[in-house]
């Protein structure tokens, strides 16, 4: 089983202040910490587990600048065999269909059975690249997968639906699965793996190397345009409880008891 796993480097903005930069089409990311996108981390683990159970290879694929190399090396340390990074400033990350086109160009001439992506990116949240990639490759897919069973050239994918229900679909390989968080327990990279990862191949490619022209994947040829970013006004009706942490806790406790909340 030869698997490609697509990964993205994203900022952790869960507790960070986010400011729109002067272009109004990006944010000031100078103070963010970056790491592998959460769902992609689960996809890497799933790919490695499939390899451990069935043999084969895991190739890590990423679109992005050199900053992503450390993240890619970590995926190699966890069990990836080799990696490709497509580094080209002309790639338009505001259009997931164009990103899918770039990834497809990197994969389509290779031997593969399975392509895994995270189902969701923590930064843009498009939830579109994996399924668009399947269409570009002309192969079937299943989105939001939280359990994978591979057997006899087919895969049973458990898709997460709303309300805790899932559906099981059977798909012929090769196929693309977009992986949901919680599907497995992502491992930490072992020290030995980290050392070995330094020696594994990490190819860096340009759009020209993939035989795609700038016209196919640039902002000009995109069918959508990001006009501007802005910080939404949060209309909160909340009563903000002030003071030192302990005072806040005491005031809240009093409100809960006297206000009949509990």
């Amino acid at each position, binding site marked *: 089983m030869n698997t490609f796993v697509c990964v993205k480097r994203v900022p952790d903005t869960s507790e960070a202040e986010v400011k729109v930069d002067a272009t109004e089409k990006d944010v000031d990311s100078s103070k963010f910490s970056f790491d592998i996108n959460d769902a992609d981390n689960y996809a890497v683990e799933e790919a490695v587990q499939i390899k451990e159970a069935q043999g084969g290879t895991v190739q890590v694929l990423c679109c992005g600048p050199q900053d992503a190399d450390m993240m890619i090396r970590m995926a190699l340390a966890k069990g990836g065999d080799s990696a490709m990074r497509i580094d080209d400033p002309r790639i338009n990350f505001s259009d997931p269909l164009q990103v899918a086109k770039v990834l497809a160009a990197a994969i389509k001439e290779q031997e593969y059975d399975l392509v895994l992506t995270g189902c969701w990116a923590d930064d843009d949240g498009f939830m579109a690249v994996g399924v668009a990639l399947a269409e570009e490759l002309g192969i079937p897919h299943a989105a939001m997968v939280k359990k994978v069973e591979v057997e006899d050239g087919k895969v049973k994918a458990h898709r997460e639906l709303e309300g805790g229900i899932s*559906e099981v679909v059977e798909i012929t390989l090769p196929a693309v699965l977009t992986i949901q968080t919680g599907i497995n327990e992502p491992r930490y990279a072992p020290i030995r793996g980290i050392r070995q990862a330094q020696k594994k191949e990490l190819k860096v490619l340009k759009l020209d190397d993939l035989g795609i022209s700038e016209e196919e994947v640039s902002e000009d040829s995109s069918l959508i345009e990001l006009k501007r970013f802005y910080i939404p006004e949060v209309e909160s009706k909340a009563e903000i409880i002030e003071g030192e942490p302990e005072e806040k*806790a005491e005031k809240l406790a009093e409100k809960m008891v006297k206000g009949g*909340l509990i």
Partner: protein
Amino acid sequence: MSNIFVLVEHRQGELRDITLEMLTKASQLAEKTGGETVALLLGNGVDSHAEKLTGYSDKVLYMDDPLFEDYNSEKYQKALVAFFKEQKPYLVMMGHTAQGVDLAPALAVELKMPFVTDVIDLEYVDDKLQPLRQYYGGKVNAEFSFKGEPPYLVTFREATLEVPEPFKSGKVEKIDSPLKEDIDYRKFLEYIEAEVGDVDITQSEILVAVGRGVKEEKNMAMIEELASAIKADICASRAATDAGWLPHDRQVGTSGKTVKPKLYIAIGISGAFQHLAGMKGAKTIIAINKDPEAPIFAEADYAIIDDLFKVVPKLTEKLQELRG
């Protein structure tokens, strides 16, 4: 060329609310484009769904075919590609749901449709559509525009609009299914129902909810003490169940449970829209989070913006004292 099409979402015999939410938006837009709303329904034995939808759409078109018994992206895509060769809508809306995200991107690629996902609002200004979506977990709004020719395609976020009462009396038309035969490269096998756990959080009066901010499983002891002091049940955001601190049946949100307790105390939860959709019906919401920009505060009645590890133990202590 000015009609707004909505792909009807239904599962296991039930129309899903997102369909009606989208038809509300579609109706507002159609007034501006001068077109009609069209609910497009694919299914098997769905006459009653079609009938019900006339209350929400100018037109209901439906394909009734045993091949549509259960949703299958490949069959839907084939049918829609054939259908959109005949019909030329201005805009097609699908839910940003497990179904929509599984179908829409592939359809957009095949038909080269200008496509924006997870849209929270759509304005029609100067004869142009402006889809609005979010980045960075809701901390940034992003205005998009479409280039190129219609039909345009969006997936629309669930629970953004209220589920409406019927507001139209439209016409139903049954149309032929373009599918000639079944496919074998993707097959629906079965549904697996939600896990049933020891506590049904949909019935809980008081819920203490934990999220990523709780950081480690060992910190759950602190949460359990608080919950026990006020006789609350404990539930979680996705991050906490993914990490294995609590079983999946305690997850609140679109992929988990929808809860409506009297009191919901969100601890270390930033408030991704999927989570908010599952808890905003709570009567009173208390949020404790150190990030002042956390979207959870937009839903809260009481907010403590501070380090939960300093606040929660003291809160428990004071509650124990006050309650004797």
